[in-house]
């Protein structure tokens, strides 16, 4: 009887330790996600500053006006963050969080669908080295993002998007076509 109670106590201890550790991981990840949200919000404030004085060419028949707008917006954003570098928004801990979120999605029940979706959407290879503050290469297609993967990643304002270029995950300003930050070598784990 005493032996059985002993085993039960040990099992309960191990289970509660595991649950506490899991909860701590969740709390830690939520804190990291909140920091990323804050950095994104800071970028959006800076972007708003860059937009001041620029006329967004809504519904123009002139491709030149759209190209000029894109160029000017990207230039003003660069001027406002001249020292921007890899890891400013995707800090080491944010990159780690993204790695875990991608791994969770890929190992989950939709992992095989996500992988197939990537393959069938024309994976981007050989985008070259993508610098922060650089313009996304003209003519390089944009890798479509599988919905089940997007649903696992932190939400973004509509002016920003995640895109894969090979194994790099970039944060892209859509109207400025500007690379805001990059996670290099985001590994896609094998699915079940």
């Amino acid at each position, binding site marked *: 009887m005493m032996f059985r109670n002993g085993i039960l106590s040990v099992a309960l201890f191990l289970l509660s330790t595991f649950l506490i550790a899991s909860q701590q991981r969740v709390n830690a990840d939520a804190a990291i996600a909140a920091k990323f949200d804050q950095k994104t919000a800071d970028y959006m404030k800076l972007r708003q500053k860059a937009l001041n004085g620029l006329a*967004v*060419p*809504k*519904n*123009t*028949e*002139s*491709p*030149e006006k*759209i*190209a000029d*707008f*894109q160029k000017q917006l990207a230039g003003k954003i660069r001027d406002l963050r001249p020292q921007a570098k890899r890891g400013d928004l995707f800090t080491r801990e944010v990159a780690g969080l993204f790695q875990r979120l991608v791994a969770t999605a890929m190992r989950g029940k*939709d992992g095989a*669908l*996500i992988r*197939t*979706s990537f393959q*069938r*959407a*024309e994976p981007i290879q050989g985008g070259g080295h993508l610098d922060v503050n650089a313009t996304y290469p*003209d*003519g390089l*297609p*944009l*890798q*479509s*993002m*599988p*919905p*089940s*993967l*997007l*649903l696992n990643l932190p*939400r973004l304002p*509509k002016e920003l*998007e995640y895109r894969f270029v090979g194994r790099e995950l970039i944060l892209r300003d*859509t*109207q400025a*076509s500007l690379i805001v930050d990059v996670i290099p070598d985001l590994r896609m784990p094998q699915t079940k």
Partner: protein
Amino acid sequence: MTRRLLAVFAVVVIGCGVVSLRPPSQLVAIFAAPQAAPAPGAVSVKLPLEQKSVRFAVIGDNGTGDTPQYEVAAEMEAYRKVVGYDFVTMMGDNIYGSHKPKDIERKFEAPYKPLLDAGVKFYACLGNHDDSNETLYKLFNMNGQHYYSFKKGDVQFFALDSNYMDAKQLDWITNQLSGSSAKWKIAYFHHPLYSDGRFHGPDLDLRKQLMPIFEKYGMNVVLSGHDHVYERFKPEEGIYFFLVGNSGELRYHNLRQGSNIMAAGFDTDRTFMLVEISGDKLYFQTVSRTGQTVDSGALQLQPKPPAPVQALQQVH
């Protein structure tokens, strides 16, 4: 010998009878083989051209700027003069490669100039080769949005961005469809939920997210591109699917053989599709770069899905 011939004849007659006995909700045209090339500029319209019908053209994966795109555009103009369609839905990859202003001119404005001059409106969605700022271009009628809706008569169109189907967009399409009272609901986007194209194939993850919404709220027709072929499918969950991804690009002989979801397919030249909707009928005609009709038929409006059942309240 005569007996054997008679038996073969009887089988053929019975077989034809089975095809002709298909109910109206089934596809009328099983597969029409391309006819001989018509004389240049000649058109052979298979649509009824009924009064007050909604008529439009469908193109996909068109923006190459190469000669075949211009030839398809010339056929579209020849048919417009007879059919009188006044808008075109674009399945994405509107502009391939570079997106400099001269590219927009060469890959869109120049080939479709006769249509644009005639007042035809183009409603684009984005493909994986498109740039987000195409949404700002007035001639694509996207009003700065990556996904949007518009109505024409009894038909409501939902142009989606299948490159980036995030939670916001899924919420948007759910809300739009749940609030729509349109008789016909047509969604279009770049990546196909069904495809027998060997190069890409269907986007199964997108299908998993969208099909439950489409089924629940009674989507009638779904149009896509991405695979550079033409394909029409047997109804899936009661929804009619078309793939028009060869209005500029082409992947020759790319359709999988022996598919059990295909109703008709064409992968040896470029095409565009004409659609006419009148009352409960949708008529379609797919025309090749050289003016051959490669598929045509009529589809019946599906019955509306049952209204969502309210959860039963527990009686104490």
